[in-house]
């Protein structure tokens, strides 16, 4: 089982994700340079957070042209696991691997804080260790996390159970107060129709160790390990 963490120019959570997989989850992992054209030998690929190309045009807008994205498309089509965290999520929507778009936070400000998200679908390779309705204590750190999708896309997402996480209060109530950025339906993370590509704004890589304040994010990586070992057996 091998994880890969893509480094785009401007990625800045690449080492955090690497550490989470290697030191916390204890699985083999290596970096993937954004100009690499093959993902041979990888079972799961992480698009880390950060500011690829400075997020200068739109978040994730220029990263989608990196050579590795071609390979990633094929990798995902073949059922490989892909998780995009924060800027990674933005890159996935820009490149069309996930529907919707991430707009500026309604507050127009960058927000870094711990909050809660509610698990909406526990039947994905990223959530199989979780229960529907369970809340995770996990941090966000973004200026553009305001998820948007047009009406029919949204209907499709909801219908297919593609909404993985929603911002909620500690008790799991999905309220307007719990919505940090204005996301439609408090959506914090979604999967593609096939379920093997997850994009989420909150940071499991920042919540996988007790000394960082939470271990809830770890369960997302463990779910992936779970799914992959299942796939093996």
């Amino acid at each position, binding site marked *: 089982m091998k994880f890969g963490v893509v480094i785009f120019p401007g990625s800045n959570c690449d080492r955090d994700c690497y550490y989470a997989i290697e030191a916390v989850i204890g699985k083999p992992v290596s970096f993937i340079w954004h100009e690499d054209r093959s993902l041979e030998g990888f079972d799961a690929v992480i698009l880390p957070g950060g500011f690829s190309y400075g997020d200068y045009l739109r978040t994730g807008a220029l990263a989608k042209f990196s050579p590795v994205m071609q390979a990633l498309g094929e990798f995902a089509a073949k059922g490989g696991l892909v998780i995009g965290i924060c800027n990674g999520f933005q890159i996935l929507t*820009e490149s069309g691997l996930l529907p919707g778009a991430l707009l500026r936070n309604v507050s*127009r400000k960058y927000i870094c804080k711990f909050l809660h998200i509610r698990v909406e679908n526990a039947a994905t390779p990223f959530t199989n260790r979780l229960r529907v309705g369970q809340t995770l204590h996990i941090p966000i750190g973004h200026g553009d996390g305001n998820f948007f999708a047009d009406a029919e896309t949204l209907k499709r997402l909801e219908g297919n159970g593609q909404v993985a996480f929603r911002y909620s209060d500690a008790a799991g109530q999905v309220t307007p107060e719990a919505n940090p950025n204005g996301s439609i339906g408090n959506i914090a993370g979604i999967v593609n129709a096939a379920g093997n590509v997850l994009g989420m704004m909150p940071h499991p890589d920042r919540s996988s160790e007790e000394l960082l304040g939470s271990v809830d994010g770890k369960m997302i990586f463990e779910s992936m390990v779970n799914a992959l070992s299942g796939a093996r057996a």
Partner: protein
Amino acid sequence: MKATVIVTLKPTVLDPQGMTITRGVQPMGYSEVRDIRQGKYFQVELDAETSPERRQALVERLAKEVLTNPVIEEYRIVWDRS
């Protein structure tokens, strides 16, 4: 050889930036301002040699594939007469 690409949010997409500015200025003596929407403005300069057809196609593609996110935005191209 210059072209201008104007990228605006689709009418159906709400614009937090614009809204905040509007709300911010109305009390400051701008009560007549009903709405402000913010967009992006790109001045694109091409090599002088670029042929007219090529030019058209190039900027069109640039605007469509790079400068705009079709999910939320639309664009308009204005050519410099100069």
